[in-house]
């Protein structure tokens, strides 16, 4: 670290260079710190949920429905919430998947430019809507006249899932090489057959990825359900015309209760929901990598 070692020859380290180096180091450190903070936050939240929810997790948690003791304690499990969430997500996907894919096909393959732009804009706007507004919309459109139901809740979730599925389908359709389409048409196949028989199957991987991501997203949504399927009975409901309980709503409601046994159940429900969502997210990454390899390889 001798001063003359640095000062010799042409590459003299003057004060200005030292300052610039320090600024550079500080900025590099800050950026690294930022990344660490983000990762730390993720770890903290996940660990919190698992740690606090672990004790309440048991087989009965998954199979029993809630019971309420006279002392204000919570008992039983969240079977009705789990079933309810599954129903809501399944119905929502059944609505949103076909409509999303078909809209994407229209926008990417068939629509004139200006029409496609309008639809794309509409999808982007829908994507950016606060989910509570979506819930209020479905409330006024369906619930006011017909009451709450799983169908209403699914419809709200479908609205949220639609732009996600449509956008990811568009992106994967764009990746299909034009030569594939030309090959289909050159064989004499009509447009609709080329699209449904060649382009669509090639895009399946991307559609699967987008759908998985959309499911992961809507499984955790609470706001759209507040006004559409929140007054549910505490037993397992199978009829979609009745309102159903769901995991996000259970967490939301249980945390408001004063008794800590409810809080423990809220954490546990959170753990189940988080596991579901994170596993789905990981699956979607796996599908994405696989479909990328297929399209380029």
């Amino acid at each position, binding site marked *: 670290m001798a001063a003359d070692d640095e000062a010799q020859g042409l590459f003299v380290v003057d004060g200005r260079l030292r300052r610039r180096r320090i600024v550079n180091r500080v900025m590099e450190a800050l950026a690294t710190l930022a990344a660490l903070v983000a990762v730390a936050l993720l770890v903290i*939240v996940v660990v919190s949920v698992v740690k606090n929810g672990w004790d309440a997790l048991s087989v009965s948690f998954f199979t029993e429905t809630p019971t309420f003791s006279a002392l204000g304690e919570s008992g039983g499990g969240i079977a009705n919430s789990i079933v309810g969430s599954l129903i809501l997500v399944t119905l929502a996907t059944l609505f949103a998947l076909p409509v999303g894919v078909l809209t994407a096909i229209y926008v990417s393959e068939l629509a004139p430019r200006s029409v496609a732009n309008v639809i794309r804009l*509409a999808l982007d706007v829908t994507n950016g809507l606060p989910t509570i507004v979506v819930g*209020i919309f479905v409330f006024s459109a369906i619930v006011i006249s017909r009451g709450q139901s799983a169908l209403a809740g699914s419809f709200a979730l479908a609205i949220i899932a639609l732009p996600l599925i449509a956008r990811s389908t568009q992106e994967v359709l764009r990746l299909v090489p034009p030569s594939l389409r030309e090959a289909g048409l050159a064989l004499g196949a009509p447009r609709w057959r080329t699209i449904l028989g060649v382009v669509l199957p090639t895009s399946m991987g991307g559609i699967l990825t987008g759908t998985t991501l959309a499911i992961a997203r809507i499984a*955790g949504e609470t706001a759209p359900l507040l006004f559409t399927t*929140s007054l549910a009975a505490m037993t397992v409901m199978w009829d979609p015309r009745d309102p159903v309980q769901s995991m996000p709503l259970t967490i939301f409601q249980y*945390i408001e209760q004063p008794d800590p046994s409810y809080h423990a159940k809220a954490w546990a429900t959170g753990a189940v929901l988080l596991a579901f969502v994170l596993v789905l997210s990981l699956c979607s990454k796996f599908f994405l990598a696989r479909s990328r390899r297929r399209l380029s390889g």
Partner: protein
Amino acid sequence: MPSELRPGRRLGSRVGDVTLFAVTGACGLAAVALVVAIAYKVVDGSTLAFSTFGLQFLVEQVWDPVKGEFGALSFIYGTAVTSLIALLIATPLSIGIALYLTELAPRFLRDTIGALVEMLAAIPSVILGLWGILVLGPFMKDHLEPFLQSFLGWLPAFSDTPNAQGILPAAVVLTIMTVPIVASVSRELFQSVPPELKDGALALGATRWEMVRGVTLHYTRPGLAAAVILGLGRALGEAIAVTQVIGGQVGIPRSLFGLGDTMASRIAAQYQGAVSNVQVSSLFYLAAILLAFSLVVNVIAQLIVRRFEFQHTGGS
């Protein structure tokens, strides 16, 4: 005549094409109709409140179901303050993360850390709210807020007693939700900077940070603005996590430690039923304001993105 040219075959393909066009077109139409329907229904639901209060609704700080008086001001304030604080913290944090991922991270870590940051976005808001109430809140009340008060307490924003709920915890939760979006868009932007521009700066004898400041950040300025606005849109509309930690109080708190409410959060908080039609309609009024905010934010972000694409493909 070859079988492919027989009229029946051609008719069949024609019908198929038309059918596909009609079906997919109907779906596209439905997508547009949906937006229109949402806007219409929300505005329609607010007409009662609008005719009762008019634009005065926007400047009144009251929310009294008993007296039937409602106003949005304290919620507009709460929305603005929580979102702005969230953006103030989230923006440099996200840019830092994106710079780390594009410039500093070793190759094998890049995708892993990128994936971890994206997973932050996957956490359902109700779980963040749960964590916010039971973990973050007490931490802020017992440690963070007193710490801030110890040297910033002379500012009105940091006066009053620390609370486990309130504006500040809500802002922190919103920050956590905004960071992944802004970070991932920023990361894509930084990856799109042409390497020859970066090489040019480094060849002049610039340090890496000087290159980032002069080339990378400069080149991606408009895109970054759009990313921040996208983050703003997310923060504005978040109802669940906010309502769990903000305390749900009407009025404009003097300090950041105080309780308050946002528009989205107030709507969510009233889900168990409103007392009167006017109250329900007032909720719709709030939703309409929220919708308007979100549309404006969305459109601005789109405009920036469009201008940005033009700037880098055309010359200017």
